[in-house]
């Protein structure tokens, strides 16, 4: 029997910041063809969902707190039977929440203890009815992220109350609290999908409560799906999670026929695409660009994306008097990205740590030769792209020059990249995830979880 999947996501089109939203949608769409699946995200326009899965946008929901006596009793029963209290050894300061359904104030300690008290409060309190307008999330990663992540968990718990499902599949740390809580409440297997880690975003030394949450959630999960072996290694090395729990599944990509658009200008076009933040290594791209310009002035560089480093980088460009060669565009809509790639002569991904790197696949699809960082997941699936150490900007500049000037080589690389792409479909990814589900639910009959080739 096909498992009923309860999937928890954070980014969903059109509100996407990066690969997470694209990957969540791609995987859910393909899985939805194979098994019943409900995806709960903070924001979505549900009536526009063209996919086979059931989509819930919390922005379009109304939250009902306990409203009927009967209902309340049922909850209490379940709770008494099923709730297992889990204390977590993490520092969650600045993370206190106000319990909404209590009349008398209670002592708030950590997030986790508050949850417990709230549940007990159902027992003690009389009718409390509160309707609230849909979940409000103005930015996927705003200043109030912690609060929103907590609130997301509360909403999900309310939505899921009427439903039955066989397993929980949660994407990245923003949904992990919700996933952990559902696992505790309903005793269903929890699958965690890792698209990005604190390690990637903040470096190997970074610690803090998000790291702790990631580590704790992965240790509690039944299985963890990293998007690459690169990420699987980080999970074992930096999070101490047993490799037996890890089952990497590569991302797919929606097919796109390559096309070319003439550039309005005659210089060659080299693109960097991604958030302008330390993890993506934009400054290494910049250094390499500067070196290449010395050798070949007939190149324009476009840095597409936004992020905390954009303004300092723009000022550096001005200081180096390169503002007429290195162009920043800010955030670019997906269609415009494709248009840009259709003009591009070279794509560079200089990430310091990239769990996967979907945009490299997009570039490869559009027949743009790619130079990608070795420290990336996509390097495992795009062997025909040129791989470099992001910090070796001399090498990067030399490779850029060679690729821009050697037509034959460019051709071989773009052909090779197209061959690599043939293995990367969301259907293939979804089949591997299905095998993981089967093994999880029927450990005796199923074969081992598939390992990517």
């Amino acid at each position, binding site marked *: 029997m096909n498992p009923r999947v309860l999937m928890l996501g954070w980014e969903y089109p059109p509100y996407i910041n990066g690969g997470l939203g694209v990957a969540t949608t791609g995987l859910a769409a393909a899985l939805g063809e194979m098994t019943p699946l409900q995806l709960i995200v903070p924001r979505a326009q549900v009536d526009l969902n063209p996919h086979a899965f059931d989509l819930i946008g919390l922005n379009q929901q109304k939250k009902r707190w306990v409203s009927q006596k009967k209902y309340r009793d049922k909850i209490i029963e379940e709770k008494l039977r099923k709730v297992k209290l889990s204390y977590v050894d993490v520092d969650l300061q600045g993370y206190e929440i106000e319990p909404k359904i209590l009349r008398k104030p209670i002592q708030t300690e950590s997030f986790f203890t508050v949850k417990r008290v709230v549940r007990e409060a159902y027992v003690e309190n009389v009718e409390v009815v509160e309707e609230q307008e849909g979940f409000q999330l103005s930015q996927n990663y705003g200043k109030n992220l912690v609060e929103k992540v907590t609130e997301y968990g509360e909403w999900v718990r309310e939505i899921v109350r009427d439903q039955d499902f066989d397993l929980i599949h949660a994407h990245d740390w923003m949904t992990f609290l919700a996933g952990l809580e559902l696992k505790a409440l309903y005793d269903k297997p929890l699958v965690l999908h890792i698209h990005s880690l604190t390690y990637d975003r903040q470096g190997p030394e970074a610690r803090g409560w998000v790291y702790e949450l990631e580590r704790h959630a992965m240790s509690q999960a039944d299985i963890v799906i990293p998007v690459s072996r690169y990420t699987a290694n980080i999970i074992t090395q930096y999070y101490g999670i047993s490799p037996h729990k890890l089952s990497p599944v590569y991302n797919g990509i929606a097919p796109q026929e390559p096309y070319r658009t003439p550039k309005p200008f005659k210089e060659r076009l080299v693109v960097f695409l991604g958030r302008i933040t330390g993890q993506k290594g934009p400054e290494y791209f910049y250094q390499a660009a500067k070196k290449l310009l010395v050798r070949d002035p007939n190149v324009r560089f476009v840095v597409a994306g936004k992020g905390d480093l954009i*303004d300092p980088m723009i000022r550096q460009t001005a200081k180096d*008097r390169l503002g*007429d060669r290195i162009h920043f565009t800010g955030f670019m809509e997906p269609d415009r990205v494709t248009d840009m790639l259709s003009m591009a002569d070279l794509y560079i991904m200089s990430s310091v740590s990239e769990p996967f790197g979907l945009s490299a696949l997009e570039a490869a699809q559009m027949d743009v030769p790619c130079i990608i960082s070795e420290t990336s997941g996509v390097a495992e699936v795009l062997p025909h792209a040129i791989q470099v150490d992001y910090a070796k900007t001399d090498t990067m500049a030399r490779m850029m020059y060679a690729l821009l000037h050697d037509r034959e080589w460019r051709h071989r690389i773009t052909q090779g990249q197209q061959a690599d792409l043939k293995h990367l479909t969301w259907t293939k990814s979804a089949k591997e995830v299905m095998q993981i589900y089967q093994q999880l639910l029927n450990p005796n009959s199923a074969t081992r979880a598939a390992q990517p080739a």
Partner: protein
Amino acid sequence: MKQICLYFQVHQPRRLHPFDVFDIGSDRPIFDDILNIRILHRVCNKGYEPANDLLMRLIQRFGNRVHLAFSLSGTVMEQMAAYKPQSLKSFQDLASTGCVEFLGETYYHALSFLLHEETYAEEILKHRETIQQYFGQTPRIFRNTELIYSERLLPIMDRLGFQGLVTEGVDRLLIGRSPHYVFQPNWHRDIEILLRDYMRSDDIAFRYTDREWEHHPLEVETFAQWIDETEGEVINIFMDYETLGEHQGGETGIFRFLEDWITYTLQENLAEFVSPSQLIRSNVPSHFFTSKEWISWADTERDLSAWNGNEMQQEALAKIQELRQPMQATSRARANPQIWDTWHYLTQSDHFYYMATKEGNDGEVHQYFSPFASPHAAYLHYMNVIAHIQHQLSEWSCD
């Protein structure tokens, strides 16, 4: 009797269209003339026209006792002539009273004095011709872009025959002296300098609407009394004309205040309102005002930092300056008036002003004027336009 010199700066820039990297080499328009027309109409309707009506009433009532000065950039005259002729007409009506003096400046409200001396002179002459054409006067007093001044401008002032110039009464150069006299740069120059009284000017231009200000709301009598108690005989009140009705809306009572104050001053015989040329004729310069450095009326620093204070502004200035050389060297560009016109418009001080990254009040003023979301955005679009022209030139040189 004290002499009050009122001078209003009238200027609207030709703002850029957002211009992204993929517009380089395309035939997309560089300037956002739809935006420029919209702003022009707003400013004319809310500011210039009612203010001109007010001045006309005062002149009709008090005749020769009210003199004042305007400086209109070439850009604003051009925009009014094309899109708001009735506003231009209302300035011409004022000119025909004989009570209004028009100052000289660069046609493009440009920073060309930093870029190329000959171009600077050409732009001043082009402006002079335009003033002659519209107002039948030849400017004798010079007002450099944003009252920027240093002694380096003097040779060209001499050459072009200006008798006086206006600039900012900068404290660090006055060293405790009062700005309320007529100055000269040194013994050897036959040119006189009028210094803005920034206290009295900013009382009207900025503090008038500041509710936190202890003198808010400012009373006509109080203001007149301050002027009366001022040491020295000459009070130069210089400000942007857009202060009236645009930066401070009509509903703040700014028009009423100005009209009442001028009326009160004249009725009580407290002072006379004179033009800069009258000031120069009726006063012998009594002090030296020496400025080897660049000064201006902008920001707290009163220097060039509003336009060249950061890397982005410096690069933009360097790149627009460098463009001249290939433009001269390419025969198709040399003979193309349009590309030169564009070049001149790109030297407008406003573009660089939008790129300033200052904080606090000054930063807010910069951002208030900018059509772009941030100084960085202003810089990026400007540099894309520079790249666009570079690209055009290199195409032409290949032909």
